[in-house]
C-alpha cells in the first residue's frame, strides 16, 4: 500500500495543471445542449487541443498511437481535468473509451491505422450500436441480422440508447451473423462491425429521456451494406470482442464522475450553509456521511486502477462492485440535494434537478444493479447459477 506519488507522477500533474491553466481560458463558449453539431465541434476542438499537447489517448498503448501512460497517470489526468472544469469527453466517449480500445486490442494493423488516429485527433466520432429494444439486460439476445453477400454484410434491424448518433461517423455495431439454434447458443454467432453512419439504409430517430432532452437515439437499419473488411475479430466471435469493451466501461469510466460528485457535495454544503439547513443535524450528518462515502469511492477507484496496473490494463469484475456502490451513492447525493433545497429543488432553474434526473439512469445503464449483483454473486463470490 503506497498512496504517495512518484516524482515523475508529480511532475506529470504539475505540467498538466499548467497546461490546463493556460488552455481552458482559450476555449470557445459551450454550445447549448440541443445543438448537436455545435457540441460535436466543441468536443472535437477540445480533443484536438489534447492531441496537440500530447494528452490524447493517454492510456492507449504506444503502438495504437497512445501515450502508454500508466493507469496512475491516467487517473491524475482525469482528476486534474475534472477539478479544473475542463470539457467532458462528450462526443468522443465511444471512440476513446469503447470502440478505440476494442480496435486497439482486437483489430488488424490496417484497421488500427484506419480508425485510431482520427479518434485521437478528434476528427471522427463513434457511437455504439449494442442494445436493442428487445435485448436490454439480455444483450446477447440481440436480433439485428447480418447476411453475407459477397464482400459485404447486409444488415437489417434496430438499435437503441445510442448517444451522439446524429453526429457520429462510425457505429460500433453488434450483429447476429449466425442464427440462434440448438447448436449455436445466443452468445455465439455475434460479430462486431464498424458501420459508417452515412451508409444508405441508416435512419436515426432521437429518443427523448425523462430529463426532456434527446441524449439518445434509436438507429434503424434497413439492408445496410457494411464491408466484411470492417469486421473486427473473427466472424461469430463478437461477444468476446465486446466483453473487452464492456469491461472497460465498468472499470474506469466513472473516475471523473467521482471527482465531480465530491465537487457537487462541496456546493451542496455551501448551499445548505446559505439557506440555513446546515443547522439541521439530520441533513448535516447525511452530507457528512456522503462525504465519507465518496471519499471511499475515490479510494476504490485508485484501488481498481492499481489492480488494472498490475493486470496489464484490463479492469476486472471489481468494476461491478464499484458501480453498485457508486450508482447508489450518486442517487443518494441528489436525494440529499433535494433535501437541502426543499421546494426549490422543483424549479429547474436550479442546477441540481437535471443532474438528479440523469442520475436515475445510473442503476440501469451499462448493466442494471440487478445484473451487476448477479455478476458479483456468480463471478466474484462463486454462487451457483439458478436453474
Amino acid at each position, binding site marked *: 500500500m503506497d498512496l504517495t506519488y*512518484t516524482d515523475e507522477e508529480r511532475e506529470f500533474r504539475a505540467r498538466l495543471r499548467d497546461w490546463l491553466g493556460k488552455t481552458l481560458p482559450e476555449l470557445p463558449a459551450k454550445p447549448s445542449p440541443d445543438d448537436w453539431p455545435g457540441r460535436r465541434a466543441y468536443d472535437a476542438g477540445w480533443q484536438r487541443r489534447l492531441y496537440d499537447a500530447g494528452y490524447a489517448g493517454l492510456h492507449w498503448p504506444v503502438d495504437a498511437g497512445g501515450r502508454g501512460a500508466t493507469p496512475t497517470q491516467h487517473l491524475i489526468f482525469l482528476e486534474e481535468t475534472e477539478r479544473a472544469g475542463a470539457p467532458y469527453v462528450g462526443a468522443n466517449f465511444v471512440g476513446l473509451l469503447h470502440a478505440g480500445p476494442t480496435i486497439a486490442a482486437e483489430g488488424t494493423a490496417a484497421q488500427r491505422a484506419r480508425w485510431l488516429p482520427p479518434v485521437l485527433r478528434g476528427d471522427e466520432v463513434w457511437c455504439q450500436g449494442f442494445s436493442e429494444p428487445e435485448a436490454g439486460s439480455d444483450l446477447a439476445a440481440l436480433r439485428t441480422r447480418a447476411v453475407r453477400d459477397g464482400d459485404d454484410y447486409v444488415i437489417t434491424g434496430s438499435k437503441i440508447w445510442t448517444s451522439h448518433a446524429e453526429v457520429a461517423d462510425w457505429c460500433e455495431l453488434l450483429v447476429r451473423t449466425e442464427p440462434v439454434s440448438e447448436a449455436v447458443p445466443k452468445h455465439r454467432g455475434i460479430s462486431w462491425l464498424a458501420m459508417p453512419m452515412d451508409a444508405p439504409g441508416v435512419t436515426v430517430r432521437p429518443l427523448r429521456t425523462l430529463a426532456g432532452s434527446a441524449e439518445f437515439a434509436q438507429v434503424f437499419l434497413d439492408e445496410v451494406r457494411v464491408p466484411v473488411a470492417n469486421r473486427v475479430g473473427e466472424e461469430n466471435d463478437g461477444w468476446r470482442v465486446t466483453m473487452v469493451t464492456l469491461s472497460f466501461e465498468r472499470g474506469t469510466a466513472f473516475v471523473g464522475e467521482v471527482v465531480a460528485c465530491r465537487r457537487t457535495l462541496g456546493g451542496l454544503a455551501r448551499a445548505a450553509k446559505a439557506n440555513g439547513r446546515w443547522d439541521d443535524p439530520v441533513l448535516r450528518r447525511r452530507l457528512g456521511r456522503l462525504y465519507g462515502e465518496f471519499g471511499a469511492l475515490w479510494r476504490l477507484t485508485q484501488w481498481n486502477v492499481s489492480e488494472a496496473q498490475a493486470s496489464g490494463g484490463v479492469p476486472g469484475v471489481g468494476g461491478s462492485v464499484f458501480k453498485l456502490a457508486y450508482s447508489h451513492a450518486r442517487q443518494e447525493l441528489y436525494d440529499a440535494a433535494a433535501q437541502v433545497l426543499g421546494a426549490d429543488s422543483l424549479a429547474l432553474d436550479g442546477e441540481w434537478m437535471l443532474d438528479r434526473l440523469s442520475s436515475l439512469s445510473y442503476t440501469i445503464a451499462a448493466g442494471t444493479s440487478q445484473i451487476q449483483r448477479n455478476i458479483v454473486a456468480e463471478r466474484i463470490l462463486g454462487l451457483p447459477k439458478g436453474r
Partner: protein
Amino acid sequence: MRAVDFRLTQEQGDLRAGVRDLLAGRYGREALRASVEAGGALDRGLWRELGAAGFFALRLPEAAGGVGLGMPEAVLVFEEAGRALLPGPLVATHLAAGVVAGAAEGAAVVTAFDLGGALVTHLGEADAVLGAPSLPAGEPVPSADPLTPLHRVASPPAAAQAAAYRDEGALLTAALQVGSALRTVELAVRHGGEREQFGQPIGAFQAVKHLCAQMLVRAEVARTALYAAAVTADAGEAAGAKLLADEAAVRNARDCLQVHGGMGFTWEADVHLHLKRAWVRAEQWRRAEEAQELLAAELASAAT
C-alpha cells in the same frame, strides 16, 4: 519506479498470512466456542503469545523493543483478529504498548473508556485502563456480547480521557469491523452454496445472491476506506472508515443471519457472535453520529 499502488506489498501480504495462520492454529473454532462458554474470559497464555508475535508492539519503534511497522500493517493484523472474533481489549492494549508496562509484550491486559460512558469492557481482567491513573472499581453487568464482559463503573472519567487515542482507536476498531464484515460474507456464501431448499442451493436464488453481493460491496468499500485512512493518517478518512466499517459489520452480520435462516438464530452458529461484537465495536471510540459530524465539519471547511 513505483507508482501509487493500493495493493499490499509482499511483506504486507506475508504478515497478513502469518497472522491468519497463527490465529487459525491458536484460535480456531473450538477455542472460539470455549471462549463463548467461558463468558469471554481471556486466555492469558494466548494474550502473551499475541504479544510475542508482535500484535501489540507492532508499531513501537524497534529501538523501543517494538516491531517498527506502521498503521497499514496494523490494520491488516486487526482485520485478521476481527475475522477470527479474537476476544479481548485488543485495540486498547495495542494503543497502550510503550505507555503501560507489559502491554507491548502481552503481559498486561489494558482496557479503555472507549464506550463514552460508565461501561468498560473486560474490566474484571484488566491490569490497567488506558489513560486512567488507577484501576477503577466496577460492577459486572450482563453483556449483550458473550465475548465482551462489561462492567459499570461508579464514576466514569471525563470523556476527554480517551480522546488522545480516539483517531487511532477508531481506525483499529474499523479494521476489526472490516474483518468481521468480510468473514460474514464468506459464511453467507458458504451456507448459500451448501443449503438446499426447493431442489437447489439457496445461493442460486436471486434473493440470496443479491443479499450476498451487497454484503461484498459494503465490505469492499469499507476495506478500501480503511486501508486509505491507514496510509494517509487523515482524521476525516479515519472517521469515514469507522462509519463505513461499522455499517458493513452490522449490516453484513444481519444479512448473514437472514441467509442462514433459522440456523442463524441459534447459539451454535457463529453469526450472532459477529453481530453482537459489531454492535459493541460500533459504540467504541467514535459512534456513527460523531463520525458524521466530523466528516460534515471537514466537508464544510473543504467547501469554503
